[in-house]
């Protein structure tokens, strides 16, 4: 059961990254590869705010959300808006990821930093497995944010406008939707989400620069398995990836966990390219 709990925790982090991808993807059809690095930045700011500045918890969250959201908006401005086409954007988002990784490393160094958890650090025993409160909180965060994402994207005008932009940018412009504001908004929201998660993810993973690239890929797998642009997809996809990784690591050996995740990714892509909750589009010309 402990293995399952740790799988669910990993899965929650992946799912939250996938959710961040989805927020941007749904509004602007952009795959923001740097999102996981924003989350990593969030963990560092959480460290800085709690350990260096010794701020109260509420301010830590606020600071993380504001700074990371600002960085995300900068990213939209310099790496997304001037570039058209998926290839170009993949290159520039990878560029932004690398730049962010480099800058983070210059500021905080390459060593992992332990981010203290604001809540209880006492290990709990749930359903016969050992689990930390922070891990339960991560799972809770995934469920809550996925639910909010679904509620907003299905139930509000904003969500419908997001869908419209993603479906056909020009048609949305014609309908009076402020496409640019939507894009900036999406980056700001996904950035704020990444920032808010910093103080929760940090205690689990430590603040370490190399976190970004591995989370970026696992988050992508979660998104691909769940379906691009789908809230429940991010939830299910994230948990699937987390469980595969921890179970195969436990029973086959550490070296096999990434391999099994990769196999699952290939299988989903070949059998159901749209993911579990995605929709196919047949139109081509």
């Amino acid at each position: 059961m402990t293995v399952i709990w740790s799988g669910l925790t990993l899965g929650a982090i992946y799912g939250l990254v996938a959710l961040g991808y989805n927020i941007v993807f749904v509004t602007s059809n952009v795959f923001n590869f740097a999102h996981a690095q924003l989350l990593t930045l969030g963990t560092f700011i959480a460290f800085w705010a709690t350990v260096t500045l010794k701020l109260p918890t509420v301010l830590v969250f606020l600071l993380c959300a504001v700074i990371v959201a600002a960085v995300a908006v900068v990213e939209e401005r310099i790496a997304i808006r001037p570039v058209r086409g998926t290839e170009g954007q993949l290159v520039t988002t990878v560029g932004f990821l690398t730049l962010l990784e480099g800058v983070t490393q210059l500021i905080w160094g390459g060593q992992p930093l332990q981010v203290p958890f604001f809540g209880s650090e006492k290990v709990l025993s749930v359903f016969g497995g050992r689990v930390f409160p922070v891990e339960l909180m991560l799972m809770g965060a995934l469920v809550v944010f996925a639910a909010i994402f679904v509620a907003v994207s299905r139930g509000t005008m904003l969500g419908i406008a997001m869908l419209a932009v993603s479906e056909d940018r020009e048609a949305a412009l014609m309908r009076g939707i402020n496409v640019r504001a939507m894009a900036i908004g999406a980056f700001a929201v996904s950035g704020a989400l990444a920032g808010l998660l910093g103080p929760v993810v940090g205690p689990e993973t430590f603040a370490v620069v190399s976190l970004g690239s591995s989370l970026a890929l696992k988050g992508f797998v979660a998104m691909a398995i769940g379906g691009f642009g789908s809230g429940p997809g991010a939830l299910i996809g994230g948990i699937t990836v987390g469980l595969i990784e921890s179970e195969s690591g436990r029973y086959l050996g550490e070296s096999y966990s990434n391999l099994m995740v990769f196999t699952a990714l290939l299988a989903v892509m070949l059998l159901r390219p749209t993911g579990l909750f995605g929709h196919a589009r047949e139109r081509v010309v």
Partner: protein
Amino acid sequence: MDVRQLLQRIPTWAAPLVAAVVVILFPYLGIQVTVQRQVILVCILTLLVSGLNLSLGYAGELALGQAAVYAGGAYVSGYLGAHGHTDLLVQLIASAAAALVIGLITGIPGLRLGSWSLGMVSFFLVLLVPDFLNIFSTQTGGTLGLAGIAPASLFGSQLSPRSFYIAVTVLTALWLLVLRNLVTSRHGTAFRVLRESPVLASSMGISVFRMKLSAYAIGALPAGIAGCLFANLDHYLSPDSFGFDLVVSILAASILGGSASVYGAVVGATILQLGPLESTSFQKYALVIYGALLLIGGVVLSLGLAGLIRSLWVRVERRWLPRPPITTYVGEQLPSIEGATLSVDHLVKAFGGNKVLQDVSLEAKPGQVTALIGPNGSGKTTLLNMICGYYRLDGGAIRLGDRPSPHVPYKVARAGVARTFQTPSIPEGITVAEAVRSGHYATKHTSFLSAVFRLPGYRRARSIDIEEARRVLALVGLEELENDEAASLPLGTRRLLEVARSLVSSPKVLLLDEAASGLDEDEVERLADLIRRIAASGGTVVLVEHNFRLVLSLADQIYVLARGSILASGTPAEIEVHPDVMTEYLGMKVPAADSLLSTAGIDGGKDD
């Protein structure tokens, strides 16, 4: 002779050749060993980058797994070298074979999914390298690295550092030659067509599946070769050499040098190798520099340094050098065409719950212009797309001549159906003549090898391509623009270019999707004349058009499509006065319609 004319006579391969010879001869020119080592590292990075350039720059496929392929090649050669198989040729072949296998496996998802899904999968593959090395740690040394690789030999004698240097530089130069021959060939143009749009490629009879596989396979080869060379450089391999940093530096070098270029790889590799990769003082800032390079490259230098140089050269050419004279095409511009009857029987198509086509039947005969008109959203383009094989049929049948039409787009094209697009689809970076020749690509099969070695079969196919392209360019009146960049032409000219491209394969059936929109009066006249001539020569022409006057003057048979079904059909004279057509399509009020409405108790009212 005039200096300028002399300059023009120098072939484009002269400068790279001279540069390659000089670099190869470095050891004899007294260049230091440390510099030679740098050159070897530049060569290895060049090989990696050029593989990426082929798949990303030319074919537009984000196959970014070069680092994983490189690791595969390196460990295969390293393993052989550590077990007494030191012959460089044997190792090269083994590494190349390993590269092909890895390249193809990573490519599998790319066959079904486009763009960044493939990118992510190939990134992921790089993440797996250390795991694989661990799993096979008895063979690879795992995290400790693979030591004890014996020095390479060639034909039984051990290679000295000097001869190894020469081997590396010669191999790199040869590979660049192979790549150059490939991308300047008809296959290179076909890759660019694929990059522009897989839909376009298949409409021209190019098998997207085959082209993508080729791009993954050929793009992986140099990475395998690079791995083999790397294994023999230090006689030691460590998993750290194949990490995510390498992926980023390969990508940065490619973007900086210019992805769609052959020699850009050398430029990008040199800058990165001598810059951030080497100097230790930069180590701290390496990531920042890579990131900045990728951002700048992606945003500002979209064509890289090679693109910059190319556009400067074009300016010099325009300003200083005389334009090569264009010889007018003499000969039959339009030999007789063997058309085929296209018949559509009771076709049904629905997207989800939305019935786009319901029970549509029509027939287009050789020697005639068959027009398809109807309001926006009536299903005209959907019908064309179904004829071309892009959508599954939900009911009914499409026949070409006396055979059922195939349901695979590129097979439809090869069966003799050519089309133009509502929005002209013209690949970037090629000339007008090349764009037209690409339409002829599928009519004659030539292998990649014959293009690389410029074998007689390839030369024959190429001269036919050139001749046919000149014929149709003369036919549509674009002869003079032969050497201009195709994608930068104005809309009307691009439409005519598309018509030329679809005509070059001498299609049995020609589908024109709103070919006249965006043309000026002269161009419309030229197009109308052209369509008449094609029909008169025996071709089957299907015209989807909004210009009602043009349709009336051109068509032999008109089908009116409204809300997914055929509202009326007949000759222009019949359609012109058809009451349903006038209300439905032209929004006109006619007495019949008015009386119909008033009997139903509705005021005929406003035109909307």
